[in-house]
């Protein structure tokens, strides 16, 4: 199979070899001159040179604090920082850039919602629904919120194919439900959840919806208006941007209901001795000096993705994911977790008789980076009945040859550890 997807799917195909040249880290050799095969993209993506350049350019040419400095550098930094807000709004179909709040990443975004909206509005007896496939970052903030407000956490269970049990969702959804917290694409099972349909049902009974978009934004075109949710969180570093810059998109109506998240500079309007008034959103939620350089470089990363075209990225990654699923499932003793018809690029699996840590360590010697462990989803591991899984997660710069190399390395690991 060639590295480019089937032409019949339409749209411009990706020239992956050319794309790979944009990523300096992918040029290096590891462990005895083996080419690096990076299959841990669900954890973090690699960065194209232009993102790295954006950081350098910021620090060498217009480093200044934003929003307050009335000098050349301050104006430059502010203009570029705010331009990224607009770029993000366009990238996720929000339109209104005033609804884009910059955070450190998905975790901080969800905590922002849990504090500024959840803890400020929930009452004893209220219910929050989470799903059995959530990352800890979309569980713990709600557990903390429930503990503080006397609210109750309810769970949506999974069907055997790794999709959500929508009938059971309708059963747990009730007039006490205030919020539904769900991932768009699972970081373990790959499942693409029917967010728009579930959000519609939640809204009908007056509940709000917060979506963890960490795995979807790098994988497929996302449109928050079409999803019609209330909060949408994602991390820049999984989209080719630097760590430390993420996004919390908040629907206009919700912004008006929210209390501040953190207090400090930037988020105020007027400060008296005993109290204060707040800046207008989104600044109300951005206390202190933000990660200016990282946000500006996130803008470069989104430009890079736009240049490739998210439709083309999605088409390629889907073809590659299918290839990975077929290749790994064909190996003796390998079991794939999750067979949702619509899915993202995380492929989790078990190799009979081989602990994920041993497998990960073994394939690493062949220069292959995969992930092993509970993947920050212990409730899901319990539901799958395993303590840990192995995961290969794909990006548009990966190739079928790299997946073949992983498969060959797994076969050798099976022989090394005396199974298969």
């Amino acid at each position, binding site marked *: 199979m060639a590295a480019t997807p089937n032409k019949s799917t339409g749209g411009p195909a990706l020239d992956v070899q050319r794309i790979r040249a944009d990523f300096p880290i992918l040029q290096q050799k590891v462990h005895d001159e083996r080419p690096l095969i990076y299959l841990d993209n669900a954890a973090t993506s690699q960065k194209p040179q232009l993102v790295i350049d954006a950081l350098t350019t910021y620090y060498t040419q217009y480093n200044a604090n934003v929003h307050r400095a009335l000098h050349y550098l301050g104006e430059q930094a502010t203009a570029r920082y705010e331009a990224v807000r607009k770029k993000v709004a366009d990238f996720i179909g929000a339109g209104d850039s005033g609804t884009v709040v910059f955070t450190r990443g998905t975790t901080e975004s969800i905590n922002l919602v849990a504090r500024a909206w959840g803890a400020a509005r929930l009452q004893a007896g209220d219910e929050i629904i989470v799903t059995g496939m959530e990352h800890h970052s979309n569980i713990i903030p709600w557990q903390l919120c429930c503990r503080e407000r006397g609210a109750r956490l309810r769970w949506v269970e999974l069907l055997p194919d790794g999709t959500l049990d929508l009938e059971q969702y309708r059963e747990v959804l009730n007039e006490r439900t205030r919020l539904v917290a769900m991932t768009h694409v699972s970081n373990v099972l790959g499942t693409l959840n029917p967010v728009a349909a579930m959000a519609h049902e939640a809204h009908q009974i007056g509940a709000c919806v917060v979506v963890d978009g960490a795995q979807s934004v790098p994988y497929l075109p996302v449109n928050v208006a079409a999803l019609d949710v209330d909060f949408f969180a994602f991390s820049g570093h999984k989209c080719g941007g630097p760590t430390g810059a993420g996004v919390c998109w908040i629907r206009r109506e919700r912004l008006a209901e929210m209390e501040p998240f953190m207090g400090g500079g930037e988020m105020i309007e007027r400060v008296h001795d005993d109290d204060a008034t707040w800046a207008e959103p989104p600044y109300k939620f951005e206390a202190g000096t933000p990660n200016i350089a990282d946000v500006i470089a996130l803008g470069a990363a989104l430009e890079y993705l736009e240049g490739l075209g998210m439709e083309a990225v999605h088409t390629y990654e889907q073809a590659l994911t299918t290839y990975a699923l077929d290749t790994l499932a064909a190996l003796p003793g390998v079991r794939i977790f999750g067979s949702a018809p619509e899915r993202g690029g995380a492929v989790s699996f078990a190799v009979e008789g081989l602990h994920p*840590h041993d497998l990960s360590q073994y394939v690493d010697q062949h220069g292959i980076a995969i992930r092993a462990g509970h993947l920050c989803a212990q409730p899901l591991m319990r539901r799958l009945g395993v303590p*840990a899984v192995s995961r290969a997660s794909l990006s548009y710069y990966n190739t079928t040859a790299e997946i073949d190399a992983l498969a060959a390395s797994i076969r050798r690991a099976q022989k090394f*550890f005396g199974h298969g």
Partner: protein
Amino acid sequence: MDDLEQLYQDLILDHYKQPRHRQALTDEEVSVEADNPLCGDQLRLAVECDAGRVATIRHDGKGCAISQASASMMCETLTGRTVEEVGVAVRDFVAAMRGEREFDPSWPDEWLALQGVCKFPLRVKCATLAWHALQKALERQVE
């Protein structure tokens, strides 16, 4: 592949494939449980002391080759020693795994076999999981 073969020495793979002192434990028998949240490893120990000696140590649970082999080797080399000796042994072994002291060539082959794990800092926790659990179990028995 030199580092990898050092990590997974034959003696380690032998203990992994044929663990000694491994037995399905009932909840009542379990003295201590240990989790390695990094990798989801779960280990349970049943420790019985008699007349100041660690008479039996049994283990069960799920884990990687290193954590499983290390538990097996620990049980194999410490059973029958006095509680005090076991305390010193655990302290010495854990310190050596952390690079805080040298491995002593006079130590049992099983301990020395785990030396290769030190080259993989993330795996040191796997190799010391059972040992920390044993320490905790003995502390509880003293109380």
